[in-house]
């Protein structure tokens, strides 16, 4: 009975989302106040309905209701309860339900938190969100219903969740990622609403900013989590694979990063507005494209968990309507936008424009690298595959100007900057960062490569520039200590964002240049030594988990003469799906990770063992976390909370 109720509330939510489009828009164009106000109520009701469906599906998973096909395929009674819960988004149907649920969550957040916006604008925004929700509801209900029953003959037990997904990282990675993906829908809706209204002003940028930043924060954390998960769970020791599914999440992130920067310019200086709108449309369009790529199976991927051509066609149709429609609207309406601000070549505006150009270039690289194999085949040139080397080369080229300009960007003034004035600070930054690079590599690098020097220098260049800029700003009017306290949240946000990027660059550089990977044959009692580390293979035991059996290899690790850690690497066989999984043993550290993965037992009783030494790999995820923290600070900035101030400014815009 319960699943039928879930199905019913899902259909109800679909109907409500349709009303959420029609009624508020009618209100806006006829001036009917009641209809305009209905937007918030309908959004709330729609949210409640879909929340109901989502909770029912989650509950059915918890109580092992295998009469539901989706649950029978993706869960098992031996699965621990938290994985039963995360199994809700373990496959196609459920992850789409999560998608619409989160869309409703963002919509209701907009409805409840936009008290200071004119009711008409809110109604437009909610109506646009309604369009997106309606499309996805139809998709779920028509092609991917999670509540379908196995009745009358249902299995006694389920087929279990894909073992790859039975992991803490995968409990939170998809919701985070989806919060980011779906979150860009708000920026999208604001942009469409502004285009419909024909009023793209600084107020629009100001309203969009915290929402865009929120989505960006989620996406940043989501991608970092995914990378971390791939690192420890897949047992390859890599942290990014340029896999189409990864690229699908990376593209909206690049567009989103460009967007948060250009929104800042649009808000503060009133320029780039038409470009900013286009970015807002692109960021969400790329999220949709990502969903399409992942869900349609058009691309060959390691992640190929679910694919179905009819679903692909449906999403593609939806994609064409939404993206095509919005771009057409853009073509018609954006010409009415006039940028008022003026700026010279040497100015912060120019540098932010450059930042956008480089980010978009990176985006195009990823887009082409992901789609070209497909296009290539389509135009009859045969099949090609664009792999890691292509992406790595392109990104190495792009990151150099990006980091160099990023470092100095915040030192530039709006409108006009005399280059003469910057000569001394730049020389200082250059000197300090070169020195830091030398010291850092002297301490941590066993040998030197050009790429290592370049990458480390770029990282320190940004760090030193950020520190110098904070110092300048703080001592502008006050003593350093007082000034530091007076810096606004937004300023800290920018500094942290850039600092996080620098830390990530250093992490990537060190990991890529100085990792050591050894595949060795070890018997119990033997040991191997490299990089001052000695790994001794103590013993092998077996272990019975809730839904798997495992062989556990125990290694004690010594650095020089000093014992530092005992590591236990597992090889698991999941009983239901008969799938073998490697649970690598990882000793994480601030400056290095030690990583052991058990291979197969060889005929002579010894084991194939993979041992990795990964310097600074934690920095690759620490960087994004710091960036995300910066984003959070910006959302918390007073400008986006204080009502009075906003009203004043909006008032001024109208005059």
């Amino acid at each position, binding site marked *: 009975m319960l699943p039928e109720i879930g199905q019913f509330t899902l259909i109800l939510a679909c109907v409500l989302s349709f009303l959420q489009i029609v009624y508020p828009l009618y209100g806006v164009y006829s001036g009917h106040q009641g209809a305009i106000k209905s937007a918030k109520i309908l959004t709330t009701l729609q949210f409640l309905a879909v929340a109901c469906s989502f909770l029912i599906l989650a509950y059915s998973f918890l109580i092992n209701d295998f009469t539901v096909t989706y649950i029978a395929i993706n869960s098992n009674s031996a699965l621990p309860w938290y994985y039963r819960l995360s199994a809700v988004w373990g496959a196609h149907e459920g992850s789409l339900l999560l998608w619409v649920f989160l869309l409703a969550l963002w919509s209701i957040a907009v409805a409840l938190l936009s008290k200071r916006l004119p009711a008409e604008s809110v109604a437009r925004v909610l109506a646009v969100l309604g369009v997106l929700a309606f499309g996805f509801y139809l998709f779920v209900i028509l092609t991917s219903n999670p509540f379908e029953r196995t009745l009358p003959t249902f299995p006694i037990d389920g087929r279990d969740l894909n073992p*790859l997904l039975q992991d803490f990282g995968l409990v939170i990675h998809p919701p985070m990622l989806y919060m980011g993906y779906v979150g860009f829908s708000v920026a999208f809706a604001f942009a469409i609403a502004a285009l419909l209204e024909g009023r793209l002003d600084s107020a629009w940028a100001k309203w969009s900013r915290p929402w865009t930043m929120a989505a960006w924060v989620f996406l940043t954390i989501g991608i970092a989590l995914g990378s971390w998960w791939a690192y420890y769970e*897949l*047992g*390859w020791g890599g942290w990014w694979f340029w896999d189409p599914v990864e690229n699908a999440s990376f593209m909206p992130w690049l567009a989103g990063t460009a967007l948060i920067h250009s929104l800042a310019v649009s808000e503060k200086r009133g320029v780039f507005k*038409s470009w900013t709108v*286009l970015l807002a*449309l*692109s960021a969400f*369009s790329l999220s949709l494209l990502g969903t*399409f790529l992942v869900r*349609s*199976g*058009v691309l*060959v*991927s*390691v992640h*190929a968990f679910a*694919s*179905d*051509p009819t679903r*692909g*066609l449906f999403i*593609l149709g939806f*994609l*064409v309507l939404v*993206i*095509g429609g919005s*771009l*057409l609207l*853009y*073509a*018609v309406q*954006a*010409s*009415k936008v006039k940028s008022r601000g003026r700026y010279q070549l040497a100015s912060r505006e120019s540098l932010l424009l450059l930042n956008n150009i480089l980010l978009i270039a990176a985006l195009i690289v990823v887009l082409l690298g992901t*789609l070209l*194999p*497909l*296009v290539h*085949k*389509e135009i009859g040139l*045969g*099949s*090609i*595959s664009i*792999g890691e080397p292509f992406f790595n080369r392109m990104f190495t080229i792009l990151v150099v100007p990006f980091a160099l300009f990023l470092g100095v960007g915040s030192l530039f003034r709006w409108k006009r900057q005399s280059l003469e004035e910057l000569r001394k600070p730049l020389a200082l930054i250059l000197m300090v960062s070169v020195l830091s690079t030398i010291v850092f590599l002297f301490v941590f690098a066993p040998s030197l490569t050009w790429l290592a020097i370049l990458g480390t220098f770029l990282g320190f260049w940004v760090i030193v520039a950020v520190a110098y800029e904070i110092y300048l700003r703080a001592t502008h009017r006050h003593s350093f200590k007082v000034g530091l306290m007076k810096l606004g949240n937004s300023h800290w946000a920018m500094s942290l964002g850039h600092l996080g990027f620098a830390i990530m660059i250093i992490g990537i550089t060190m990991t890529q240049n100085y990792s050591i990977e050894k*595949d060795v044959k070890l018997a119990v009692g033997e040991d191997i030594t490299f990089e001052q580390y000695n790994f001794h293979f103590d013993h092998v035991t077996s272990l019975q988990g809730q839904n798997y059996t495992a062989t556990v290899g125990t290694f004690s690790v010594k650095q020089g003469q000093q014992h530092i850690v005992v590591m236990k690497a597992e090889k698991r*066989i999941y009983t239901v799906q*008969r*799938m*073998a*999984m*490697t649970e690598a043993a990882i000793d994480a550290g601030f400056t290095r990770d030690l990583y052991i993965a058990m*291979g*197969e037992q*060889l*005929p002579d009783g010894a084991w*194939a063992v993979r041992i990795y030494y990964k310097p600074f790999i934690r920095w690759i995820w620490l960087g994004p976390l710091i960036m995300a923290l910066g984003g959070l600070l910006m959302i918390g900035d007073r400008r986006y909370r204080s009502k009075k101030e906003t009203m004043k400014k909006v008032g001024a815009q109208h005059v």
Partner: protein
Amino acid sequence: MFNKKLLIPFVIFIIGAAFLATPLLKGSDPSKLESALVGKAVPDFTLQDIYDENKQYDASIFKGQKMLLNVWATWCPTCYAEHKYLNELANQGLYIVGMNYKDDRKKAIRWLNDLHDPYKISLYDDSGMLGMDLGVYGAPETFLIDSNGIIRYRHVGDLNQQVWDDKIKAIYEEME
């Protein structure tokens, strides 16, 4: 007042969408190939031997006897689980051709040395060329090919005793 330049994003998008739509509309979607390729010969190709770069194979290796074509890679955890069973099948005297898919040659050779090599012939498809033509959308996959080089069945996912007994054995034994 209308600015034609603003139409550029729209036009680019439409062209892109058309490219994405064609494979779906034509039904050449990878997951549909299951039925499309069955009953047809293995597409033509030239691939290197995994151990020896100078040795090359083409589609003629699939003629003469019935066999399995197994697609695998070292980055694929399921292949790892499957490998033991492939060795078992090879010991029973089945003729298995392996295709190493989008992988690193060194790693692949190490894998075969470590885990025992069940393949009579090992193809190295690092660009995924034959894989694309076969419509492989992940690893492992296994194709049943008869003595005339015609694909009779495609299995997606790992081979194990259960899958073999339930689905594949009957088809394999019926095959010429």
